[in-house]
């Protein structure tokens, strides 16, 4: 059985094949997978918030899309991944509760996925697949032997990106 590395909320982990990286129960958070298909090295981040510049606490950079991705990227390159080969896949950014007057706070999921896309672009990373939005939770797993990004939900089925 290949090693299963858990990624908690506001955290990221990197690894190489045959391990898998998994993060449970994403709601408004976004899971970002980066994968080098030649060296089979990859990382999975579970970010909670879009933007560290609007937050008062920045003690944990893995919490934010804009500060987490550069860190994970550095770790991957240090492990031997080739930056230009990295493929990005993202999932999450749901709106779990629907209110009539959705305030900005309620739309954090949408803002998370928007910011993740922008940060990926800024870092020149290719986003090749995504499964974002909706009103349901997701568990995401990045398999480092194949680069398959598997998304499990409670009643919206399972899919592989």
């Amino acid at each position, binding site marked *: 059985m290949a090693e299963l590395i858990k990624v*908690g*909320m*506001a*955290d990221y982990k990197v690894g190489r094949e045959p391990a898998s990286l998994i993060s*449970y*129960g*994403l*709601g*408004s*958070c976004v899971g970002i997978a980066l994968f080098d298909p030649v060296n089979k090295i990859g990382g999975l981040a579970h970010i*909670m*918030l879009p933007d560290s510049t*609007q*937050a*008062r*606490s920045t*003690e*944990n950079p893995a*919490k934010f899309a804009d500060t987490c991705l550069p860190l994970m990227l550095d770790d991957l390159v240090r492990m031997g991944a080739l930056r230009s080969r990295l493929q990005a896949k993202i999932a999450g950014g*749901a709106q*779990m*509760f*629907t*209110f*009539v007057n959705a305030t900005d*706070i*309620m739309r*954090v999921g949408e803002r998370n996925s928007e910011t993740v896309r922008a940060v990926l672009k800024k870092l020149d990373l290719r986003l090749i697949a995504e499964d974002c939005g909706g*009103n*349901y*939770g*997701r*568990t995401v797993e990045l398999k480092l032997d194949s680069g398959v990004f598997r998304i499990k939900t*409670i009643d919206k089925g399972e899919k592989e990106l």
Partner: protein
Amino acid sequence: MSEDIMKLSSLQLDALKEVGNVGAGNAATALSQIINRKIDMTVPQVAILPLGDVPDVVGGPEIMVAGVYLRVFGPAPSSILFLLPRESAFTLVDMLMGRERGMTDHLDSMDESALLEIGNILAGAYLNALSFFTKFTLLPSIPALAMDMAGAILSVILSQLGQMGDHALVIETEFSTEGDGGVKGHFFLIPDPGSLGTILAAIGVKE
């Protein structure tokens, strides 16, 4: 005001626990009357947890739960979340709708509406206590319901707290119907960043 939840004194934590105790007591009494069964309730836990650890309170991020979520408006904006494991939510709906135990295996719109109303009543009962202690007028929003993984549901609240810090102050009570273990649930009050200081000052334990 700036506040550091890591620096709360034991007096302050005790005061919050007492508020949680009376609030959850009110809510449990209300629930007990609706379903006509005795409810056991634990002493509230007032815990300061790293954000990522909060889902473990209810059994882990992937456990299936029904969550009724309400915002609290007024001088101390907060979130209230009433979480039930999926099976407990079904059992509660059986009781509310007068069905035989085990009949409910999914929620139709009437069932959802019943759970929302329960959330409404429990939040009202809880807020009554908080209003009494603080002398604040605190109003609940319309409730919203989701049935999903605990981590996904909690992330809505945790991401708000994440703006300000890496820890959450959680006032949590577990309750269950007596004996048969029919309905179990967790009741959370999570003050917004900034609200905690306001609440502590109002109940007279600012320092």
